[in-house]
């Protein structure tokens, strides 16, 4: 078995001709098919190997792509009924770059419908299960990509991250999840959810592999006006840089155990204990880490502001799904009836709820109070973090307040744990900050993660710090065994 190894190891085996690209592809699709009945990570598993001629380290390396990247002549569903038969006519820039680099696409992975949702349970093809415990969810929206990497089907996969859609499932799956600075990787061809928050990012099993993949993906794209000018540096080359004296902060209101002294939430307490233990270990290798205070009202406003902005943008971004240009044609006497029918049948209830919210938020009489205020909150939070980044090189936080929930578990959406610990990662999307989640240990035999967020454009610095942390956290290259279908 090679596909559950690191890119460096697979590369060596390829270069030594121990294995061919075709064999790797076969290995990956066999494993994908083997795991599919239980974990359901894929919408499409490809069956034909295409010979590659890439000149990069990724040549002949198999990978998976979230099913919201446009892939010419390959079904791309957004995990929604309204696109269930949609075959794109063009390639997303990220996909094109990987193709040119020689990487081999194995399949398209399941997401929460149209990337909206954080559970991996709302796709039109059914729920995705957690490779570490099939009674638990893997999280979303990039559920299938997280599961495929966690199961060792592929060494890397692409996802998209609008609030935490890469970094949350990465922590629930015990893998590395990274979203770079907004504009570092082109969004052209990524089905838009909330354009001002959407990021293309990666899943890998170690930080160096993340750097390999991002080195290929990054760069200015004339098709995406929001892309940054090329920084012309190799993030892989920066990994070994010295980190002694790097200063990090965590938010006391969210992370101090004293804040939860009357809580009976054992899982939360254990997660926080792991977090502080790990911070101590990181201090030993030279990181300077301290807690800072941020106004709790501001922190509590992250989630509502995120929902407000993302629902509003999503309503508009998905207005192209009418069944007129493409997709299942609705029925009806008038053109409005036809579009109405297509959208009624094509979206699940959850999506319709978000669209109705978004539409309400954008209405003339509500815009000022809801949409524009949410934008102001976003700005206040980003300003606060940027102010802290004048002193600190990064923000370090527990990715989540606990392990992956069981299907059907109810959460109190107004609790501190939910409002802050489960949703702080939207800060990375608000400000377009580079942000990475790395596995940091196990609680109740399930993986948990630590999240590191850095200054805008300092993707290389964030990967460098994460790479050094990974050595200490001791969870590098872990693979979930997964249960085979019998």
């Amino acid at each position, binding site marked *: 078995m090679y596909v559950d190894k690191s890119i460096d190891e697979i590369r060596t085996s390829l270069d030594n001709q121990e294995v061919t690209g075709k064999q790797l592809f076969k290995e990956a699709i066999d494993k994908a098919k083997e795991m599919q009945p239980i974990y359901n990570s894929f919408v499409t598993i490809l069956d034909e190997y295409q010979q590659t001629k890439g000149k990069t380290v990724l040549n002949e390396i198999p990978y998976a792509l979230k099913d*919201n*990247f*446009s892939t010419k002549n390959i079904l*791309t569903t*957004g995990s929604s009924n309204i*696109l269930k038969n*949609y075959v*794109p*006519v*063009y390639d*997303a820039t990220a996909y094109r770059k990987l193709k040119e680099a020689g990487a081999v696409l194995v399949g398209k992975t399941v997401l929460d419908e149209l990337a909206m949702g954080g559970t991996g349970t709302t796709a039109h093809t059914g729920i995705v299960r957690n490779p570490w415990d099939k009674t638990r969810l893997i999280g979303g929206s990039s559920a299938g990509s997280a599961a495929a990497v966690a199961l060792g089907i592929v060494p890397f996969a692409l996802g998209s991250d609008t609030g935490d859609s890469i970094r949350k499932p990465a922590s629930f799956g015990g893998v590395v999840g990274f979203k770079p600075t907004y504009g570092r990787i082109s*969004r*052209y*061809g*990524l*089905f*838009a959810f*909330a*354009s*001002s928050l959407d990021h293309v990012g990666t899943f890998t099993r170690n930080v160096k592999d993340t750097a390999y993949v991002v080195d290929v993906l990054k760069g200015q794209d*004339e*098709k*995406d*006006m*929001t892309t940054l000018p090329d920084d012309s540096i190799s993030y892989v080359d920066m990994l070994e840089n010295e980190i002694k004296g790097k200063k990090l902060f965590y938010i006391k209101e969210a992370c101090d155990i004293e804040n939860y002294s009357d809580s009976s939430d054992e899982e939360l307490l254990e997660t926080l204990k792991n977090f502080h233990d790990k911070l101590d270990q990181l201090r030993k290798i030279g990181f300077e880490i301290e807690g800072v205070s941020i106004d709790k009202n501001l922190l509590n406003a992250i989630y509502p502001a995120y929902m407000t902005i993302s629902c*509003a*943008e999503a*309503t*508009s971004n*998905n*207005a*192209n*799904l*009418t069944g*007129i*240009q*493409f997709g299942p044609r609705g029925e009806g006497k008038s*053109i*409005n009836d036809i*579009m109405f029918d297509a959208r009624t049948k094509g979206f699940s209830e959850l999506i319709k709820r978000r669209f109705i919210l978004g*539409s309400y938020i*954008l*209405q*003339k009489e509500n*815009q000022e109070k809801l*949409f524009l205020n949410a934008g102001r909150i976003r700005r206040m939070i980003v300003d606060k973090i940027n102010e802290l980044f004048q002193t600190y090189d990064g923000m370090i936080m527990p990715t989540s307040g606990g392990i992956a929930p069981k299907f059907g578990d109810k959460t109190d959406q107004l609790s501190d744990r939910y409002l802050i610990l489960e949703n702080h990662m939207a800060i990375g999307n608000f400000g377009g900050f580079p942000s990475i989640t790395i596995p940091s240990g196990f609680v109740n035999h399930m993986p948990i993660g630590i999240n590191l967020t850095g200054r805008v454009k300092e993707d290389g610095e964030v990967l460098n710090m994460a790479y050094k942390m990974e050595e200490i956290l001791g969870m590098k290259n872990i693979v979930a065994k997964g249960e085979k279908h019998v």
Partner: protein
Amino acid sequence: MYKVVIGLEVHCELKSNSKNFSGAANQYSSDPNTHVATVDLGLPGILPVINEEAVRKSLMIALAMNCEIPSYLIFDRKNYFYPDLPKGYQITQMHHPVGTNGYVMINVDGEDKKVLIHDTHLEEDTASLDHFGNFSLIDYNRCGVPLLETVTEPCLHSAKEAIAFLEALRSIFLYTDTSDARSDMGQMRCDVNVSLMEENAKELGTKVEMKNINSFNNVKLAIEYEIKRQTEILEQGGKILQETRRFDTEDMCTYSMRSKVDAIDYKYFIEPNIPPVKITSKWLEQIKKEIPKLQYERIQEYMTEYGLSRYDATILVKEKSTAEYFEKALQEGGDPKLVANWITSIILGHINKYEISMEEIFVTPKMLIDLIQMVSDGKISSKQGKEVLYQALQEEKEPIKIVEESGMKQIGDDNEILKLCNEVLEEQPQAIEQYKKGRTNILDFLVGQVMKKTKGQANPATTRTTMKEEIERR
């Protein structure tokens, strides 16, 4: 009588190689769906990329209309569902348009008027729909074509003023070469708002909007119909409903489409995929330099500096190419009034007759000046000059050559004329007698005889003077 208040919203498609936000060609084609990119179809994952040329052209128009220009352009989304709008939203400018608070000068019946411009903004055109019995067809060729929408303040007070503004606006597009502005091809379309108010009222009356009127003449008819309709309602003590009406080109009437309560909430918000476009002062200066002298300025100049009548000046500036021809002729040393006269009386007639443009005619300004000079110098008569010009335009031949080859020249030589006069007097002794008896008008007959001998080539003025002198000497 009520005071009429009119505001216009004029959409004009800009010229460019590609569409406003995609790489598809911005080109009229009768073959449907031949100029379409993925972006125009609103396929999942597409992103808009702003067309710099369209921005440049819209800035040029904004400057030509004396607008304030923001330091950053920002684009917004206008959200609504319609099959001609594949993305489900139109990219337009709501909050920071290319130009605001400008004005355009017009002249109506000899009086100058400043038409105030609320704003002008850059957006994308929609697809075009063809409706048949129980189905409709969509042509995406037009979808995404850069469209500049210019909105006036409600400051126009008659159909005549509205048309004068539309013509002035069209001339700005044509003079700056930013659009062909052809309403017959849908490149220029107009929404018209009309309201009536009591002569001394302080507040505007209730406005009625008429959408998408596609010719200047229909704008005029729609306004006139609306004034009549609203006047009748008000005179009967009725109230005007705030609504959108459709102008029907079959019966020239307007019909209600939807009332204000059904007005669509477009849920405008900033387009997140287009970062603010910085407008540097350097860029603006450069664009300013590229704006040619416009129609209104040229009319002023022709009247005050060259002493032309408003009528002639207006004819000369109607097309930029004519104005340029005229000015070039002046640079060649032509007399403004004479040049204007030759252009308006002969050259424009020729152009209209053959439906060609000024650029297509063979006679250059230099040739015209040479011809006018020959007439002024008395080398040929002005009647001959006109014939030569017609011939030059028709046969594409240099006027000087025509004169030389036909042997056409005016006999201006004094000795030659003297000799001819005496010849005629020898032949007509009885005419001398009659002249002496006081029938002085016989002189015309004698001059005519000289002309006959010379086939009209003798200079009539010289002939007349010489003949008079000779007859009196006898």
